[in-house]
């Protein structure tokens, strides 16, 4: 092999080595190329283009023109952008903690050594493989203001005048959040189940010998031991929440009014429906920076806590 020759003699023996490196490069590229061509053309180029387009003015009628920060100035004064940003943060503030709690709860409930527990785990994962259109269809009907099961239940337990959910500007977002928590919790449950299985049993046994009750064991052992998992789940949930799009499009389409309009949807409307390529890319850049910043901050906090 080539690495046996630590000091290759100049001249003669250099050539086969170089030829070998050449061959490896050719072979390596031949493996990568079929995927790389598609990846470079349809992902890498669009990603780079998105950054450049944010500083250009370009709509379907006119040629692209470099305008510097003009798109961002326009953003600053665009009321739709403010509404979408606020709604995205609202959605995230509900979706992130609730999904986290629901996923952890499910994982705790299903982390038992019982015969047939696999069946229950599969069932809890079902909502996640259900298509968003079906999810939206079913939940829109569940949330039907007059005869939907949700409101019938609320009336049965004595709630006077239950909310009108997706038909009202105040309650549409909570309805969307509830739906998304239901759909996503099974996915994060899988990650929590994996995390729970790494906690040594001896910890619990020792705590029980010391007389710790279930509540204390949960807060003193389970939660601290799950910290790496929770961190990972938190990062994933944050990214997922900020870029929410399809659920909103199929469930409320941003309405009623602008009450559930989110950033990704604004990109879609301005860029693809209106053909404002430059302006929509500026919104996209803001969305990316938002996701990026939050992720970096989370990593920093995690580092500080671990040290």
């Amino acid at each position: 092999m080539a690495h046996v020759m630590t000091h290759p003699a100049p001249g003669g023996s250099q050539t086969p080595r170089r030829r070998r490196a050449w061959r490896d490069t050719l072979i390596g590229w031949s493996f990568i190329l079929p995927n790389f061509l598609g990846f470079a053309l349809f992902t890498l180029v669009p990603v780079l283009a998105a950054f450049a387009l944010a500083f250009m003015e370009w709509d379907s009628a006119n040629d692209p023109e470099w305008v510097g920060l003009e798109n961002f100035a326009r953003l600053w004064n665009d009321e739709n952008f403010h509404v979408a940003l606020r709604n995205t943060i609202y959605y995230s503030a509900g979706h992130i903690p609730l999904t986290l709690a629901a996923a952890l709860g499910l994982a705790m409930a299903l982390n038992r050594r019982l015969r047939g527990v696999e069946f229950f785990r599969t069932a809890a994962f079902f909502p996640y493989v259900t298509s968003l259109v079906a999810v939206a269809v079913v939940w829109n009907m569940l949330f039907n203001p007059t005869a939907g099961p949700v409101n019938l239940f609320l009336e049965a337990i004595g709630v006077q005048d239950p909310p009108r959910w997706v038909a009202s500007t105040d309650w549409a977002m909570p309805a969307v959040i509830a739906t998304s928590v239901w759909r996503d919790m099974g996915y994060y449950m899988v990650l929590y189940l994996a995390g729970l299985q790494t906690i040594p049993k001896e910890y619990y046994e020792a705590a029980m010998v010391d007389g710790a009750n279930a509540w204390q064991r949960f807060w003193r052992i389970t939660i601290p031991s799950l910290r790496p998992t929770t961190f990972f789940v938190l990062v994933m949930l944050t990214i997922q929440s900020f870029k929410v799009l399809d659920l909103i499009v199929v469930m409320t389409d941003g309405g009623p009014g602008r009450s559930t309009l989110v950033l990704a949807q604004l990109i879609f409307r301005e860029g693809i429906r209106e053909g404002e390529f430059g302006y929509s890319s500026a919104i996209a850049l803001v969305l990316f920076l938002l996701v990026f910043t939050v992720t970096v901050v989370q990593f920093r906090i995690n580092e500080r806590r671990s040290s």
Partner: protein
Amino acid sequence: MTTLREAPPAAGPGPSQAGPPPRGPRIFRRTLAYVSLVAVTLLVLLPLGWMVTSSLKRNNEVFTIPIEWIPREFRWSNYVEIWEQIPMATYLGNSLYLSVVITFLQVLTGSFAAYGFSKVSFPCRDGLFLAYIATIAVPWQAYMVPQYIMMQRADLINTHLSIILLQAFGAFGVFLMRQYYMSIPDELCQAARIDGLSEYGIYRRIILPLSKPALASLALLTFVSTWNDYMGPFIYLTSNELWTVQLGLRSFVGQYQADYAMIMTGAVLSVLPVMVIFLFGQRYFIQGIATSGLKG
């Protein structure tokens, strides 16, 4: 019963006999555990159960006060009529076509590239891989507009090809497969090289057979996410005969808002294929999520 050891399906016979000290009679505690499991599961599945039972009702029976969880008579005819009311067969066919082609290309090119990234060393290799990783961090929503412009210029709007090109070469597949290949020892490849196998031979005869679980994970994750995708077809496909089942169902809801039962029938039909696939391959599905923690 009390002396019988619980037999967990996954864990082997370990020194777990000690366990938590039993407080009450074991059978009672176990029953309680099952009751709570059933309760939690029912709660999670309630919306899906309601979807299925509603799909077997008349339109005017879906919203009744109080709620009827089980229909008085099962209207299986809904499942016959829906094929006449909307071109369900075309929609299902389109969904199947896109899902199969994209999954095939993703698994093939992804595993091929992953071999190059993990088992062949050449200059710039890791820099190139970094480009793959970096794009995973950028949300798709941030570059959907440039993709759309490209497809528009290439005159590929309203073709299945546009969706295939955009989704078949994702970085995710390469990432997932590379993770797995890294766990296969290099010595195995070295030995095969000494035996005179070419790199392509090593990939086909050694790595591929060894990575069946990872291939299955990637195939399932890709298939399900393509089948369930809404935004891609929504952006690119405008003619009815090209629509996927997701688009078809969405437009059905818009057109026949009061056909509640029929809408539910459509929803069940759109979910059924994925559920069946998931039930058969759930082990690989969940492995894929637990190891990569990322989705397509």
